[in-house]
């Protein structure tokens, strides 16, 4: 993990966890447009599977709260309860929700929260602090 952080040329991916297919696809497309590497999962359970399959952990997780099968809240709890020692719990998480501010309160430690519909500029700015871009914006990955 530390060795990964010590390699500035290698930007780490953003894990997008979102059940709404449109939002997920648009988000992935937009972030990749901006030069980020992305991995997508359509609920918490799938996200955990994805994390387990990666060689390199993502630099940021974009997490929706309301999802079928496993919602964002449950995902976070598992992360903090079961993955303290393998570094998963250390991954910064941005939580997004269409619900009111109340739904976002009292969550386990996160990097920040976004309320839907979120501002892409802001999202890009925050993502950059965690995951430096590997390609300039506008260059779509091959």
């Amino acid at each position, binding site marked *: 993990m530390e060795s990964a952080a010590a390699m500035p040329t290698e930007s780490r991916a953003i894990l997008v966890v979102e059940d*709404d297919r*449109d*939002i997920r*696809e*648009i*988000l992935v*497309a*937009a972030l990749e*447009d*901006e030069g980020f590497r992305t991995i997508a999962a359509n609920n918490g359970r799938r996200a955990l599977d994805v994390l387990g399959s990666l060689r390199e952990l993502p630099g940021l997780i974009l997490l929706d709260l*309301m*999802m*079928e*099968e496993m*919602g964002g809240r449950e995902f976070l709890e598992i992360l903090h309860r079961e993955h303290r020692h393998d570094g998963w719990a250390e991954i910064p998480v941005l939580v997004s929700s*269409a*619900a*009111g501010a109340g739904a976002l309160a009292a969550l386990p430690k996160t990097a920040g929260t976004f309320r*839907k*519909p*979120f*501002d*892409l*500029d802001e999202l*890009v700015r925050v993502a950059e602090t965690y995951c430096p871009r590997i390609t*300039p*914006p*506008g*260059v779509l990955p091959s």
Partner: protein
Amino acid sequence: MTTASIPSGATRTASAVWNAKDQILRRWEERARGGTLGRGRGRKDGLSLAPILPAFLDALAEGLADEKTEVHFPPSLEPAVRALVASASLADVVIEWGILREVLFDTLEAERPLLSDHRLLLHRMVDEGIHAAAMELSRVRAVETAEARRLQHAVEYAPLLVVLLDATGRILDANDRALRVTGTPRTEELGRPFWDASWWSAQPDAAARAKEAVEAAVGGENVRYDAHYGSPSEDRWGDFSFRPIVDADGRVCTIVVSGIDVTDRYRLLEETRLRASEIRRSESLFAVTDGEMGLCFVNDAGRRLLGLPPSGPLERTSVTSLLEPEDAERFRATILSMLAQSEQWEGELRFRHRETGQAIDLQCCIFRLGNTAAHAAASYAFVAHDLREERRSDYALALERRNFEHLFQESPHLVATLRGPEHVFESVNPAYVRLLRRDARGISIRVAQPEAEGSGLFELLDRVYASGVTVRSREHPVPVPGRVGYFNFIVAARRDWEGRIDGVTILATDITEVVRARKSAESAQRELRDLIAQFPTPMCLLQGPELVFALANDAFTTLWGDEDRVILGRRLKDALPELASAAELELAQRVYRTGEPLRLLELPVPIRRGGHGASTHYVNLLLHPKRNDRGEIEGVIAAVTDVTEHVVARQAAQENEARFRLLAEVLPQVIWELGTNGELVYCNAYWSSFCGLGDDDALKDWRQSLDPEQTEMVRRVWTDATKTGTPFEMEVRLKRASDETFRWFLMRGRPVRDRRRGAVSKWLVAAMDIHAQKEASAWSDAMVDALPNPLWLMEPGTGRILYKSRVASELEAHRVPNGVGPEQWPTLYPITDEDDRPLPIEEYPGYRAAHGDFSPRAAVWHAPGGRISFLSSAAMIPARFGRPATVAFMIQDVSALTRTERALRAALASRDQFLSIASHELKTPLTSLRLLTQSAKRRFSAGRDTSLAPERLMAFVEQTDRSVHRLMRLVDDMLDASRIASGQLSYHSEPIDLGALVDEVVERLRPQAEGLGVPIRVERSDFFEGFWDRLRIDQVLTNLLTNALRYGGRSPVEIVVRRDGNDAVLEVADRGPGIPLECRERVFERFERLPNDESVPGLGLGLFLCREIVGHYGGRIAVESEPGLGARFIVRLPLR
């Protein structure tokens, strides 16, 4: 030659001798022969006595028959005897005589015993013969010594004692029989003087008598006498004969002593004498008559019984002359002839006392004596005893026993015999058993009566048992079962037949009651004396005609005041001179004279006290004669009660009464006095005029003036009041005579009690005209009842409910009476807050109002008719117009308002929820749109590569379109929900093939289902058509199918379309987790989603819409679900 005395009455024996003569002779011969042969003497010739015996027996019988007292031995026998001596052995003769005697008695007694007299006679007769033979024998022996040997033999075998003496009286020889008497050896006896011989030893005189006899015989005399002889152990009598034998020179050379044992004869003689004496002394009658029933002999008792002279000749008094005439006749006619035949008669005869003429019943036994020939010279013996005596003594004995038994059994006294030193109950009478409560027989008194331990009773018994002295103990206290009793005891020793004490007898009388009564009487008398002395009523006893004060109690002397005045022992007129002139003295004297008690009430008497001069007192005076034990009047008892105060008070009361009447007459109210039955005793002028009575009219029963409707109520109030004797109050309507109208009166009654007895004697009733108030009050009550809201009037401070309006009463279902206080409210008025929590009584709005808190309050009353939410209001109504201050308490039923408010609140909450859900749902497509636009904007604004690949552009457009479409659908849904709420959902019905529509929807959703990996199976019948709105039914199908895909846990979904009668039935089923029971109805509500389902987006309107649409076409939608086995939604739509 020889004589024998023959007693009279021997004839029967004589005849017996005659009759048995041949038999005697035959037996004698047999035995004499046998006897001699037995001795082996070998006699060949005939028996010696044979020739003379028949003659001897004849002579014997003749003598007996002639009843001669002295019979000469027949002279005809003498030659025969001489011949016998000459020719025969004299020894044989003696033996044969002996045998004769035995045979004679045996034969005669074979049939019946001989009379003792006859036995005696026969003995003597035979013994004479033997003696005679012996004498002949001795004479022959002296002269014919040749006969010595045979003589010796005869002597040895004769039933005689034979002793030979020499001329000096010494014993020469004695036969064995003589020696056997004492058992002395022959050698010792021989040579002794006869008088020293051993057989005189029994009687001292006998030796001297023998010596005299020997001396006389030596002198040549024949001597004969009866003498005692024998051994010391056996005293016998002998008939001794001394015969001197003279030798050739004429000198006495030998003396022959022969003795016949006559002991038997003597005994017989003695017995006869004894009998004769018994007969003389006997209490029974013995008499002997001659053949003509002339009395020859009557014993002393007989003479007494029959009234004959105690001694002296009987002058041949006839038996029949002594009998009662009737029995005399019977005696002559029958009894005599019976006697002639049977020799004996037994029966009862009634004699008459010679002197007194009294009848005497005798039990008689009459024997015929004498010859068998009837009416021959027979005589009769009477043995009789007094039946009266016997009967009397038998009866007396039986009576005595019965009386004793009765006494023992029935006696109230305790009777018992105790045996031995342990005092064991032997017999105990029922009274004693009752006392002991057990049958104590066989038990020691110490065990049977353990309570008596320590009372001294046992010691008393011990003392009597030891000393034999009878002891009496009076009022002896002894504990007995259950109490302590007092007893008088008589304890005596009982002795056995030898006179030894073997027990004691107890006779005890239970005098407990007596002792108690006496003690209580003593104490009662003492108490009575004390009582009179201390009695508060003045009492005195005047004694004698002069009426002297014998006794006066303290109260009496106090009444007649002066302490120094002495009245005891003085006459009434002296001691109390102020009374002397008064009538009292005369009255007291009259009581003394007549004995009639006198009672005088409220008698005015002058009483002088403390020297203040006489004042008039009123007294009740009771004069009662005092009689002594004999019932004679010896004085007068006077009891005085001073009733002055009472009399004075009554006089005052009478004045009060008059004053009351006057007042009553002027009062402007009805005033009555009623008797205990309610009858009008008095009424004042007001009432007289009210009910139209003239001055002379009789009082009318007030109850006739009552309003008939109130009669029952008034009767009840009156009955209650008279039953309890308590005041009453009621409002009644009384008819006014002047205009025949009823007017309201407030009527109050109070009982008036008899001062002495405390019983109600009459009632005072006052009635006030309250008609005006009543009218006003009725108006206000009517107004209150007219109020639409319930109203209660309460007593301030207590909260007691005084009145309630009609509406209030109806809400209470008329269950609560007036007058109930707060203590009963919790049960009668259940009040809670809005959440149905019971309020404490202090928080009851009514309670608060009663205590001055009039602020409006909200609460819930669970009234009989249902739950009432109310808002209270209260106010104080001040006392006015005779009515007390009251708290008016009113409630406003706000249940409807509350319900509306609740519905509104629910609607608001629902709307908020809807908005929250709606905004969330809206944000999703909006987020997509915003991301799309911002992404595009960033691309263009940053001067980056703006070219866009066609597929990217296409994706961009599709995503935009989808989001917009999604927004539109949400808006439609919201509009639908809103329209449903306002009832404005529109329907455009047209013929539809439901199956085709199902296929269409399934096709549309198939991609989504495949994306989830859920297979959909459709089962439908060919064709049927309904008339519905296509879009709406599409909505229903879409919603159900979407739900199945969404909530079915990716289980296969099955759709069935079928026709059931006039209904089309659509079923959509999954095999997912199912729907919990409590949610099955709620899922059809607006904005309802399954719990914990924030992860699934949606407005929660789907099933709500379905129900609305199906309902619009008159159909139904329902869900069946087994948890874990999936859910099945069933839609039933009428085809028409």
